[in-house]
C-alpha cells in the first residue's frame, strides 16, 4: 500500500494528514505551534504517522504547505497553501470555482478554472482585520473558547456595529460595548459581521463565481458560515474536514508525485523549490 502525507504549517497551528493510494484519509493530526515551526512540523508529522498506525518510512511522499513550508526539512516538495486549499476543496467539491480560506493570520480567496486549476487569488495578510485572529481577540476579551463564539453569536438579536479594523483595538472596543450594556452575543455577531464583510470583499476581488467552498479553521464556525451566505448571497460548501483542507490538498499533490514515481518527483522538487 502506498501512503502519502500533507503537512500544513501555519503561524499558530500545524496540521497533517496521511492518505492512502485511493486518496482516503487514514490519519490526521493537529497541534499548536509554540516556539518553532520546524519542531512543530516534525512533531505533527510524527503524530499523524502514529495516528495512521504507520512508520515514517512508509510515507512515500510528503508535501509541505503553509507559511512554515520551508521549515519542513523532511518534506519532498513545498507547495503554497493557495494551490493546496484549491486542490483540497475541488477534490471534495468538484464544482468549486471559488475558495475562501479564513485562517488564523491570513485570509485567501482563490478562483478556480474549469479544469480545477488556480486562476487567480487574493490574500489579506498585511493587517489582521478579516482573519481568524479577529475572533481570537473576541475570545480573549469575552474569556470564551473560540469554539463557543459562533454558537453564541447565532443568538444575537441586535448586532452591534464594530468600527475598528485593528485586531488589538477590537479587544477594547468589545469591552467598551459591553460596558455600554450591549449583550455579548450582539457584540460577537458584530465581530463576525465585520470579518464576513472583509472576507466578502476579498472574494469579490477574484470574482464571486459559484460554487464557493469555505475552508480553514474558521469554517467550523456556524455563525460565520451563515453570515457569509447572507453577505455573498450564495450558499457555501463546508467540509467536515475544512480545517485540514490545506494539508489534504498537500497530500493530494504528494499522491500525484508518488504515483508518478519518486525519482521523477524528487527531480521536480529540486527544480521547483529554490
Amino acid at each position, binding site marked *: 500500500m502506498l501512503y502519502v502525507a500533507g503537512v500544513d504549517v501555519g503561524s499558530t497551528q500545524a496540521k497533517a494528514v496521511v492518505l492512502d493510494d485511493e486518496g482516503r484519509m487514514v490519519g490526521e493530526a493537529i497541534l499548536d505551534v509554540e516556539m518553532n515551526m520546524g519542531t512543530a512540523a516534525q512533531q505533527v508529522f510524527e503524530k499523524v504517522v502514529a495516528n495512521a498506525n504507520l512508520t515514517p518510512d512508509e510515507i512515500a511522499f510528503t508535501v509541505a504547505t503553509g507559511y512554515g513550508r520551508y521549515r519542513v526539512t523532511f518534506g519532498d516538495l513545498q507547495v503554497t497553501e493557495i494551490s493546496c486549499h484549491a486542490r483540497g476543496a475541488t477534490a471534495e467539491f468538484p464544482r468549486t470555482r471559488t475558495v475562501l480560506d479564513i485562517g488564523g493570520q491570513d485570509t485567501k480567496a482563490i478562483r478556480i478554472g474549469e479544469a480545477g486549476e488556480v486562476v487567480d487569488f*487574493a490574500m489579506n495578510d*498585511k493587517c489582521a482585520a478579516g482573519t481568524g485572529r479577529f475572533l481570537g481577540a473576541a475570545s480573549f476579551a469575552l474569556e470564551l473558547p473560540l469554539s463557543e463564539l459562533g454558537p453564541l453569536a447565532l443568538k444575537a438579536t441586535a448586532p452591534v*456595529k464594530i*468600527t475598528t479594523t485593528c485586531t488589538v483595538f477590537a479587544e477594547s472596543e468589545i469591552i467598551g460595548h459591553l460596558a455600554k450594556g450591549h449583550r455579548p452575543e450582539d457584540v460577537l455577531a458584530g465581530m463576525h459581521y465585520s470579518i464576513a464583510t*472583509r472576507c466578502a*470583499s*476579498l472574494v*469579490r476581488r477574484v470574482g464571486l463565481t459559484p460554487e464557493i467552498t469555505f475552508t480553514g479553521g474558521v469554517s467550523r464556525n456556524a455563525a460565520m458560515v451563515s453570515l457569509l451566505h447572507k453577505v455573498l448571497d450564495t450558499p457555501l460548501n463546508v467540509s467536515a474536514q475544512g480545517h485540514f483542507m490545506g494539508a489534504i490538498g498537500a497530500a493530494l499533490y504528494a499522491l500525484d508525485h508518488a504515483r508518478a514515481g519518486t525519482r521523477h518527483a524528487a527531480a521536480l522538487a529540486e527544480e521547483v523549490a529554490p
Partner: protein
Amino acid sequence: MALEIETSLTEILARCHELSLRQRIPDDEAGMAIGYFPVYFPEEIVHAAGLRPHALYGGGNHIEVRYADARIGSFVCSICRSTTELGLNGSLKGLGGFFAQPICDAAKHMAGIWGRNFPQQDPQILALPQNVNSPASARYVYDEYQRLRGILAEKVGHEITDEAIRASVRVYNENRRLQRALYAIKRDDPARLSTVEAYLLIRAGTRLRREEHNELLRAALRLLPERRVRQMDKPRVIFLGGFCEQPPLEMIETIEDVCFIVDDDLLIGQRWITEDVPEEGDPVWALAESYIERSAASPVQYDARKRKEDVLMRMLHEAHAEATIISAAKFCEPGLDDQLAQSRWLDQQDIPYLVLEFEEKMTSFEQMAMQVETFAESLLFE
C-alpha cells in the same frame, strides 16, 4: 414667535438634511443628472443645458462599502472609495454623464475606473489646468469649457446658447450671494447660525435645482435674524480640510460643542467662485476667467498669487479668529502637505492650532472630542 421661527428653520434644515443623505439618482432625473467629482466644476454650463448637475461628495458614514474595497487600493482616500461604491452598488445608475477633474492623482483615476465599469455614462476628465499664472491660462480653460459645452449639447441634442448660459450665471450669482450672506452671519454672530446648519443649507444645493435652492436660502435668511440666540463663551476658530472629502456631521458638531467655527473651507466646490461672474459678454469666457481670477484657494490648486500661508492669514484676520483647526482627510496628499506648511507657519506666528485627521466614514468621535475639548480648554483658560 421665537418658537415658530425655530420650527420653520428646523423644517428647512430637516429637508436639507434629508437631501444631503440622498445618494440614489431619482427616476425623474435619470439620464439628466451629470455627475461630477469635486472640487471646481462649472455647474452653470450643465444648468444651461437643462441638465441636473449632481455633485459627488462621497458616501459619508452611512453607506456600507461592499464592492469598492476590491477595486481601490487600501491607501486611497475614502471619497474615491465610496464614490466607486456608489457606482458599483447601483446608486448612480441614473447618471447621464460623469466628470472627474485632475485636482489630484487619485481623482484622475476616477475617470479610468468609471470608464472601465460604466462606459455607458461617457466618463470624462475635464482638464482643469494646474497653471493659472500663464497669460494663456484663461484661453485654455475657455477651450476646455467649450468642449464641455459641446459634449452636453450632444447629449441634449441642441445647441446651448450664450443667452441660456448667461441666465444660468445669473441664477448662480444669486446663489453665491446668498451663500456669502450665510457665511457673514456665521462670522459676525456665530451663535445665530451654526456651521452644521450652514453646511446643511449649502449642501442641499447639490441635490436641488439651483433656483429652488435660492428660494430655500432666502427663506432661511429671512428667518435667521429673528431667531432667539443664546450667547456662549467659546473660542473663535477657522476650520480647514473640508474642501473635497467631507468630514462627518458629528465631527463638525464635536468642534462646535466647544468652539465657534467662524470660517471654513467646507464644500468649497459649491462656493468656489468668490465673487459675481460677469453677466455681460461671452458667458463661457466669463466663467473661465472667473476660475483664473475669482476662485477660492484650496490645496488642489496651485496659484503663485495665493500662497497657502497668506490665504490662511487673511481668513484668520477677516473672520477675527483666534485659532485654527487644520484637518486633512486620511490619505489626502495635497491636504496633508498643506496642513504641514500651515501648521509650521502658525507655529512661527504663535497662533494656536489643532491638527486633526478624519475620514468621511468614521463613526467614533470620542477621541476627537477629547482633543477638541483640550484645545478649547487651552484657549479659554489662559
